[in-house]
C-alpha cells in the first residue's frame, strides 16, 4: 500500500513529461485488428428547419444550423436497442468464435446499475462466458474502448451508442443525433490494423452533464475551439503519428467528429492533414452521435477506403484519443453502407418532444396500465424474450415460439424434443395485421399481427418502424430489438424483438 501511494505522489509533479511521452507500441500483429464494422441509425430523421422554425420566436439564431436532418430515436429505441442493431450489423461482417469481451460505450445507457452490456450480449447471442462491461464518462468512451480492445489482443466487440436528450432550443438539439456503431476486433483477416495511438486526459470542460439529468451545459464556443480542440488535439496526434511512423500529410482519411461546425477542418489544417482527407462528419444525415460518432465515421470510412490506406481516428472530450489505423488488402465490399441511406423525415417537432419525454401529453386512462415486470419471470424467459430463441422439434422440425414441452404438430406431439432456434435473422412475412387505435402506444396506431417465418414458425408480433400503408399480407419483414414496455412508476424498461418492414436498401 505504502509504495503504491508513493508512486502516485511521485508521478504528480511531472504531468507535462507524461503528456509529451510517446507510448511505445508493441510490434503490431498483422493478423490482428478490425475484422468488421457496423452502424445503426434510427429510421426517423428530424428535419432541422422544422425545429428551428418552432424556436424562431425566442432563438432566431438557430437558423444557422437549420439544414439537413438529425436522427431521432423512435419511441421504442434507446442507446441499448441501437447498440444491439449496430452489433448485429458488425457481427454479420465478422463473427470470430472466440469473442472474449464486449464493451458497450455510451453516456446515455438506460440503466446506471443493471449491466446494459449483458442485455446486448443476449440479444446478440454472444456466449455468456465473456467479459461484458459498460463504458461511460465522456465522449471518448467509445474511442478509448476501441483502443483498449485493439491493444488487448483478444477477440472483442466494441459498441458505441448514444441517445442524448438536449434541452429544447439549444444548439445541441440541432447538432446532436441518435445512433450506434460497432467494431469487431480479433485475429484472422483484419480490414484494418492499429499502427500507433496516443491519448491524453484533461479536465477541459467544453461541456458537461450532471448524472441523471438531460441537457448539456457548455462554455463559449470560441474558447472551446481555440483552447480545447486547437491546443489539446495536435500534440496527441503528433505522438500517435510518431508511434505509427506516419506523417500528417500521408493521412488518407481523417476521421474526427465535429460537434462544432467544421472544427475537424480547422484541426486538420493545423496538423497539416490534406483537406480532402477530412472525412464527412455526417452533420447533414444524422448529426453528432456522441460516443458512437468516431466509430460510426470509422464504419463509413472503412466501407469506402482502399487497401493500404492510413486512417487517423481522433475523438475529443476530457482530453483526446488518436488512433492511427492502416487498411489491409481485405476490403469491406459495397462502398457507402446501407445504413447511411433511407430514413423517413419527421417534421413533427411535438412528436419528437413526446418521444424524448420533454412534453407530457394526455394519453388517457389506458396509459395508466401498470407495467410492473416480474423480474423472476424475466430471468427465466431471458433467452426466449431477449434472444428471440424459439424451440425446434428435433423429431418433426416444427418451430415453436415460445418453445414448449410438447410439440404442437398434431402429427408429432413429441415431448421434450425442442432445441434452441433463433428467429432474429430468419426471413419472415406478414400473415395478418391491424392498426389498433384503441390500445395505448406511445406512437399510435399500434401495429401488430401474425408473422410467419421461413420455418413456418408463427408468432403474434408488434410491428415497428412501419407506416400503416406498408402493411399487407405477404409483405417481407425483418426483426429488430426494441423496448417492449416502459414502467415509469419503477424506472424500469423491458425489451423484446419486433418486426419491421423490410425495405430495398436494407436499412431504414
Amino acid at each position, binding site marked *: 500500500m505504502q509504495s503504491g501511494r508513493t508512486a502516485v505522489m511521485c508521478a504528480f509533479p511531472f504531468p507535462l513529461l507524461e503528456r509529451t511521452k510517446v507510448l511505445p507500441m508493441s510490434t503490431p500483429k498483422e493478423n490482428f485488428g478490425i475484422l468488421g464494422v457496423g452502424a445503426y441509425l434510427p429510421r426517423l430523421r428530424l428535419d432541422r428547419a422544422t425545429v428551428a422554425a418552432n424556436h424562431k420566436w425566442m432563438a432566431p439564431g438557430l437558423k444557422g444550423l437549420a439544414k439537413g436532418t438529425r436522427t431521432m430515436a423512435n419511441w421504442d429505441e434507446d442507446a441499448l436497442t441501437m447498440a444491439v442493431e449496430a452489433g448485429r450489423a458488425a457481427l454479420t461482417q465478422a463473427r470470430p468464435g472466440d469473442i472474449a469481451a464486449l464493451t458497450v460505450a455510451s453516456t446515455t445507457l438506460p440503466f446506471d446499475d443493471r449491466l446494459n452490456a449483458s442485455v446486448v450480449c443476449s440479444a446478440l447471442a454472444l456466449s455468456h462466458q465473456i467479459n461484458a462491461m459498460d463504458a461511460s464518462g465522456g465522449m471518448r468512451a467509445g474511442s478509448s474502448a476501441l483502443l483498449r480492445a485493439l491493444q488487448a489482443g483478444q477477440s472483442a466487440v466494441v459498441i458505441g451508442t448514444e441517445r442524448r436528450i438536449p434541452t429544447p432550443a439549444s444548439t445541441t438539439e440541432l447538432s446532436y443525433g441518435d445512433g450506434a456503431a460497432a467494431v469487431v476486433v480479433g485475429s484472422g483477416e483484419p480490414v484494418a490494423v492499429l499502427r500507433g495511438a496516443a491519448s491524453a486526459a484533461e479536465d477541459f470542460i467544453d461541456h458537461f452533464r450532471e448524472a441523471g439529468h438531460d441537457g448539456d451545459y457548455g462554455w463559449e464556443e470560441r474558447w472551446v475551439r481555440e483552447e480545447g480542440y486547437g491546443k489539446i488535439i495536435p500534440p496527441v496526434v503528433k505522438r500517435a503519428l510518431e508511434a505509427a511512423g506516419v506523417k500528417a500529410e500521408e493521412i488518407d482519411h481523417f476521421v474526427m467528429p465535429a460537434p462544432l461546425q467544421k472544427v475537424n477542418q480547422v484541426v486538420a489544417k493545423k496538423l497539416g492533414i490534406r483537406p480532402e482527407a477530412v472525412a464527412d462528419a455526417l452533420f447533414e444525415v444524422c448529426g453528432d452521435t456522441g460516443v458512437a460518432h468516431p466509430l460510426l465515421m470509422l464504419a463509413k470510412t472503412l466501407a469506402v477506403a482502399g487497401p493500404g490506406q492510413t486512417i487517423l481516428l481522433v475523438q475529443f472530450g476530457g482530453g483526446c484519443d488518436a488512433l492511427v489505423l492502416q487498411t489491409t488488402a481485405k476490403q469491406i465490399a459495397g462502398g457507402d453502407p446501407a445504413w447511411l441511406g433511407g430514413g423517413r423525415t419527421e417534421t413533427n417537432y411535438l412528436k419528437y418532444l413526446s418521444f424524448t419525454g420533454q412534453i407530457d401529453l394526455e394519453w388517457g386512462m389506458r396509459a395508466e*396500465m*401498470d407495467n410492473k415486470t416480474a423480474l423472476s419471470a424475466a430471468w*427465466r424467459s431471458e433467452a426466449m424474450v431477449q434472444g428471440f430463441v424459439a424451440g425446434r422439434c428435433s423429431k418433426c422440425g*416444427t418451430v415453436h415460439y415460445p418453445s*414448449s414441452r410438447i410439440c404442437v404438430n398434431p402429427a408429432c406431439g413429441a415431448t421434450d424434443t425442442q432445441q434452441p432456434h433463433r428467429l432474429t435473422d430468419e426471413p419472415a412475412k406478414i400473415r395478418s395485421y391491424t392498426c*389498433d*387505435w384503441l390500445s395505448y402506444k406511445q406512437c399510435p396506431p399500434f401495429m401488430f399481427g401474425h408473422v410467419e417465418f421461413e420455418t413456418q414458425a408463427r408468432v*403474434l408480433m408488434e410491428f415497428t418502424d412501419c407506416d400503416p400503408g406498408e402493411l399487407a*399480407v405477404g409483405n417481407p419483414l425483418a426483426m429488430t430489438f426494441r423496448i*417492449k414496455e416502459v414502467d415509469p412508476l419503477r424506472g424500469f424498461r423491458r425489451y423484446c424483438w419486433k418486426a419491421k418492414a423490410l425495405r430495398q436498401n436494407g436499412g431504414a
Partner: protein
Amino acid sequence: MAAGIRDRVAILGMGCSRFGERWSDNAEDLMLEAFNEALGDAGIEKSQIEAAWLGVCLEENNVGKTSGPLAQGLRLPYIAVSRVENACATGTEALRGAVYAVASGACDIALALGVEKLKDTGYGGLPSRTRGVVPDLWQPNGSAPGAFAQLAAAYQAKYGIKAEDLKRAMAHVSVKSHDNAARSPKAHLRNKITIEDVLKAQMIAEPLGLYDCCGVSDGAACAIVTTPEIAKALGKKDVITVKALQLAVSNGEEAQFNNWDGASIKTAEVASVRAYKEAGITNPREALDLIEVHDCFSVTELVLMENLGLSDPGRAPFDILDGRYDADGAIPCQIDGGLKCFGHPIGASGLRMVYEIYTQLLGRAGERQLKDVDIGLTQNLGGHPHQNVCAISIIGRLGA
C-alpha cells in the same frame, strides 16, 4: 360412446337484466334482476335450488372473488356454488356446470348465473390489467378489436375479396343488429344506424370502426335447469330442452402451427360439428330457426357463418349482403341485437344468448318474435381468433 346431453335437461326458467351502462347498480342488483325473473318464470321457491354456478370473467375485483357474491347476493341457503371463468365464453360455461349437474343425477334443480359489471373503469372498452409476467414479456398488448381485426386481413388475402367489399358486408352485419335491437327492450344500444354511419365511423382497429365493435355493458342473465320429467311435474307444458352443449378450446395449433388460415375460428368448426351430432342435426342450414353468435366484432360474426357450416367458405359476405341472416332471412342471426347492440357484459353473454332462444321458443319475444321457432343455436367465444374457447349450445322443444 356416451349419448350426450340431448333432451336430458330442461330449462325451467330464465331471466335477463336490462343490459347497458347501469351506473346506479351494483353487481348484486344485476344478479337479483335476472334471478327474480328466472325464479318467477320457473315457478319454484329459491330453497328448491340445490346447486349453482356463477360466471364472472374480468371484473372479479368488482363483483368479488369465488362464488360468494352469488351466494350472498341471492342469500342462497348454504348450497354448493361454484365460480367459473372461461373468458367471454364464461356464461355458457356456467350453464354447462348446471346442466351437467342435473344430467348426472346429482341434483334435481340447478342454477347458472352470469354477471359482469364493466362500467366502473372510467373509459370505453374493456378494462386493462397489470402486465409483466411471462406472456406479457413478448406478446403484443393489442386491444380486443385489434386481435379480431386480424381476421379481416387474413380473410381478404385468402379469398381475394376487396377491402371495401368486405367492409360493406361487415357494415350490413352491424346495421342488421341495430335494426333488431330497436325491437329489443332490454338491449343496450337501440338506435338504428345506416351503412354510411358504419363506413364513416371513427377507426378503432383497422378495418374495424366504432360500429363494427360491440357494446361494453353491465348486465346479468340466468337459467334454472331441471330434468324434463320434473319440468312437466311442475306444470310446464311447453318443455324447452338442451339439445347440445359443446366446448372446444385451442391447444396452440392456430397460434403456433402452420395449419390455420387466420381467417376462421377453428374451435367453432370443431365445436359445431360435435354439437350438431349431439343434437342429431344433419343439415344445420335447414334445421336451425335462429342463431345467436358471438358478434364481438362484425367480422367475427361474418367468419362464424362459415365456421358454423351455414355459409360456404368465402361466401359469407355475399350471404350476409343477400339478407340471409337478417330478421326476415333464412336464418335470423342476433334477433335480440346480439353482443353488438344487446351488449356484452362478458360473464352474462352466453346465458343472454340462450335467453333469447328460450324466449323465442316460448313465443314471448314481442315485436321481434319469429315464426315457427323450434330450434336455435348459440355460439359463445372467449379469447382471440388464434387462441380461444368456443362454447356452443343448441336449444329446442322437447322432442323437436
